[in-house]
């Protein structure tokens, strides 16, 4: 009797997950429907107009999709030169030492800083610096947002990569050493080929993080509803347009914002699923 009750209780608790996720999808789809119906799915995704003049409302998601993809790609590029050394430092060179645990504590703390504080730091420290260097006159823009975004995703990429680098079997490395390889060669010829797919998957998950980051990007990207012409120009990401306009939106604009949310949800879901699948595969092999 108690066993049965216990099983039912656990089952009911587990049911919350399908209910919540189903609720998320249901809410997004029903409210995005109006926008998709009005503009057409493909049109909505490929139109670059975003104007709310009454009577001639026109909403398209292209500028924001571009903004999101640009900030994410740039953040990834800026993140690699830092996350890879951290992963090697923690997982290979100083594996199991005190310095390594200090460094991984530091990156863990970086992951813990709230995104709004990253945004403040970017706005009050990095933005003036970018203006002073003459990179862009207004300081905010895709580049500024990506730089801070890169710092934010370093911990995610680094800690997971380090985990895979740590798992490279010692006998493989020792084999290479016994043939006279230097450490750098062992890393290039043994560690990367063995841990490569795991390291790669950690970057996929880091991309998933960067895609949906909201406050930092909203504070730094400049919030103009156009396709950014270059990496120094201003723009808007999918998350930041929602953060900026959701509070004041109604009717068609509201539905269009939800539609952008749905697209963002689908993109992050797919990226995360790919990342998770790759991780599981890398762990098994």
């Amino acid at each position, binding site marked *: 009797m108690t066993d049965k009750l216990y099983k039912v209780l*656990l089952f009911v608790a587990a049911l919350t997950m399908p209910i919540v996720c189903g609720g998320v999808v249901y809410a997004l789809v029903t409210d995005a429907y109006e926008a998709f119906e009005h503009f057409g799915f493909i049109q909505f995704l490929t139109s670059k107009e975003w104007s709310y003049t009454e009577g001639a409302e026109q909403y398209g998601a292209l500028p924001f999709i571009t903004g999101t993809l640009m900030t994410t790609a740039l953040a990834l590029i800026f993140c690699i030169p830092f996350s890879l050394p951290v992963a090697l430092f923690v997982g290979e060179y100083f594996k199991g030492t005190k310095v390594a645990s200090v460094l991984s504590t530091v990156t863990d703390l970086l992951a813990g800083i*709230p995104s709004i*504080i990253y945004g403040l730091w970017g706005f009050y*420290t990095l933005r003036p610096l970018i203006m002073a260097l003459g990179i862009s006159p207004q300081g905010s823009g895709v580049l500024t947002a990506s730089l801070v975004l890169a710092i934010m995703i370093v911990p995610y990429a680094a800690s997971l990569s380090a985990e895979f680098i740590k798992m490279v079997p010692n006998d493989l490395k020792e084999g290479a050493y016994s043939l006279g390889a230097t450490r750098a060669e062992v890393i290039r010829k043994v560690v990367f080929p063995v841990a490569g797919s795991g390291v790669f998957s950690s970057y996929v998950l880091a991309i998933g993080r960067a895609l949906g980051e909201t406050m930092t990007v909203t504070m730094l990207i400049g919030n103009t509803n156009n396709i950014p012409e270059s990496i120094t120009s201003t723009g808007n990401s999918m998350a930041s347009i929602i953060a900026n306009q959701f509070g004041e939106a109604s009717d068609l604009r509201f539905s269009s914002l939800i539609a952008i949310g749905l697209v963002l949800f689908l993109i992050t879901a797919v990226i995360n699923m790919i990342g998770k699948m790759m991780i599981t595969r890398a762990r098994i092999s």
Partner: protein
Amino acid sequence: MTHLKTKHRLLADKAMLWIVCLFATLTAVPLFAILGEVLLRGYDQLSWSFFTETTPTAYKAMKAIEAGEPIPGGIANGIIGTMIMLGMAAIVAVPTGILCGAFLAENPKNRFSQTVSYLTDLLQGTPSVIIGIVTYMWVVVPMKGYSAIAGSVALFVMMLPLIIRSTEETLKILPASLKEAGLALGGNRARVMLKVQLPAAFGGIFTGVLLAISRVIGETAPLMFTALGCSFIRFSIDKPISAVPLLIWEFFNDPNLQELIWGASLFLLLFVLTLNLTAKYLAKKWNQ
């Protein structure tokens, strides 16, 4: 010739070591830069009244700036709002998450639990702003207004997958003999879970809850569309309410209140980092 090549290889090896050390160390710079900036600009705002008084109106702040005085008031409304919403979210999310995690640990192979496990990953990866707009449609629209309840629902949804995962992982690494011994002594599954497995996993689960709290306490985007914000201390859960990150966002957008940003940020940052370090310390201690 070979001698030269060896020299080159050794040099490349050294260079690699130095590059790795240099760039790995550089990664620590942003942490200290951010911490330093928030500390330097915020420490003189922290006083007793900063934690006991509510946010001033823009007009009051403007008057104070004109008179050359420090801006009066504090973030008490935000602290209380955060506590109320976080408390309500945790009361529901912690037991649900633990039970759900226990379900996943007990039935690792069946199809339903694999679906649940996949959905947990999905929800954990969902951008917080989307949780915000979805909660808006779930709670704010039917209730016809922003409220503390809506805010705590958003925080609940964000906390749930984190608690499920940490519970599941902790239960899974417990030695199977522990559970078997309990069952052999004649305990039923519920009793073994409650009296043997959960107490043994307490450390990991507690750490997971701390980390979940530290993760959602600084969330701004999901609260913007659910709790909205409020400039005085309020205890009713069906009305708009403030939170510390919401206040920071408000200060950021109001030129008159900008000086208050740093005190509020310092408080939030210290709180989150302390929570993180505590969790890490406890995890280490309990693992031994």
